[in-house]
């Protein structure tokens, strides 16, 4: 969120029309006001089944015993394997955003964006705003994955959106000088003769995210491979609890979606963890129902179809496990 300078959609409840970085600041202030103790520059290095966390904070390492834990570690970027994929000039979209928004450094002059999901489209637009030339946006699927409003901005700026295209390889010796692209056929191969070279000094990969679930694997949570949710995701119940009692999940680590859904899931996981520890506020049913309604709205319509499909698969995996365990 800290790197998101664009404004969000959705309803006011998910801070729509606010910039991502301002949402993060507002939520942090809200938590601190409520008396939450915040450890900054702290990383959980390990999560053990008995509820022990190994935490590094700056130059110290401590263990913390917890009754309940909500894992909301987000997601990491996926990448692609192609010849010369180690050349300087090839970045993940997150790195490009860090350079642009945190350090004020341009990654290069001419960029090829790979991936037309929301991240690829938004970062393309941010590059244009920063004065960088975006040569094209490649997308392997038939359709642009991101919201139409983002795609339209890119089209209006005159950037071609090449669907059914992929990276064949990178060119250059000491750094990136070009990218060979090709059109995809129905079996996922390259259409012979469709290859061509785009001269660029930056290739930005925005080819999707996968849950940063290392801690959940470590703790022994059951995982399921659901491509619609970004890869391996934790099997969980309707209350965001994993198969290891006391470990809850929220946000992209539970299945890659939009930041708006992550905020709602965070509230739900927090409510469930609090309830299970005995903090059974009379407001709980109301707050829970409210969150469920918001999530359903966020996942509604054609935009949420893939997510709904992924969640249905995940629910089926869980149902099978419950049946097998009973």
């Amino acid at each position, binding site marked *: 969120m800290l790197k998101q300078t664009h404004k969000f959609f959705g309803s006011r409840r998910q801070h729509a029309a606010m910039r991502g970085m301002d949402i993060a600041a507002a939520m942090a202030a809200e938590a601190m006001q409520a008396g939450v103790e915040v450890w900054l520059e702290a990383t959980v290095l*390990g999560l053990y089944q008995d509820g022990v966390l190994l935490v590094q904070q700056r130059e*110290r390492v401590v263990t913390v015993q917890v009754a309940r834990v909500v894992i909301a570690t987000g997601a990491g970027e996926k990448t692609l394997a192609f010849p*010369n994929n*180690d050349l300087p000039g090839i970045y993940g979209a997150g790195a490009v955003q860090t350079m642009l928004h945190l350090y004020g450094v341009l990654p290069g002059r001419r960029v090829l964006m790979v991936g037309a999901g929301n991240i690829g489209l938004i970062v393309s637009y941010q590059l244009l705003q920063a004065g960088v030339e975006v040569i094209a946006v490649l997308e392997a699927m038939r359709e642009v994955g991101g919201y139409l409003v983002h795609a339209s901005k890119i089209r209006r700026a005159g950037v071609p959106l090449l669907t059914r295209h992929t990276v064949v390889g990178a060119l250059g010796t000491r750094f990136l000088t070009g990218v060979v692209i090709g059109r995809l056929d129905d079996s996922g191969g390259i259409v012979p003769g469709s290859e061509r070279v785009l001269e660029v000094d930056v290739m930005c990969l925005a080819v999707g995210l996968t849950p940063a679930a290392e801690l959940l694997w470590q703790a022994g949570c059951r995982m399921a491979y659901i491509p619609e949710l970004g890869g*391996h995701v934790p099997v969980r119940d309707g209350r965001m609890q994993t198969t290891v009692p006391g470990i809850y999940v929220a946000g992209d680590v539970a299945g890659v979606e939009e930041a708006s859904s992550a905020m709602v899931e965070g509230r739900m996981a927090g409510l469930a963890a609090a309830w299970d520890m005995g903090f059974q506020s009379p407001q709980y049913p109301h707050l829970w129902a409210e969150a469920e309604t918001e999530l359903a709205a966020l996942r509604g319509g054609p935009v949420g179809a893939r997510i709904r499909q992924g969640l249905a698969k995940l629910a089926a995996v869980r149902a099978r496990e419950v049946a097998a365990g009973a």
Partner: protein
Amino acid sequence: MNEQLTGPVYICRCEDVTLAEVWAALERGVTTMEEIKRLTRCGMGPCQGRTCRQLLARELGRVMGESPGAADMATYRPPVKPVKLGVLAGGE
């Protein structure tokens, strides 16, 4: 199409493991991510496989004719990121 495109395809950037090395392991009869990891060090670098596990799972799936989800994800162990020994030794 382009002779320059014969360059290496890196799967694991931390440990410089290429696709050719993964294929060589598969040709020796290796079929699991755990074995590839031990033989090539793929996924054993500073990032602990954050990037290459996905690529390796996809490649294993492709070669075995299965979904990437069928690959055994090699064991995840603490710590999730490199820690200086001095910091660990000074711990409580």
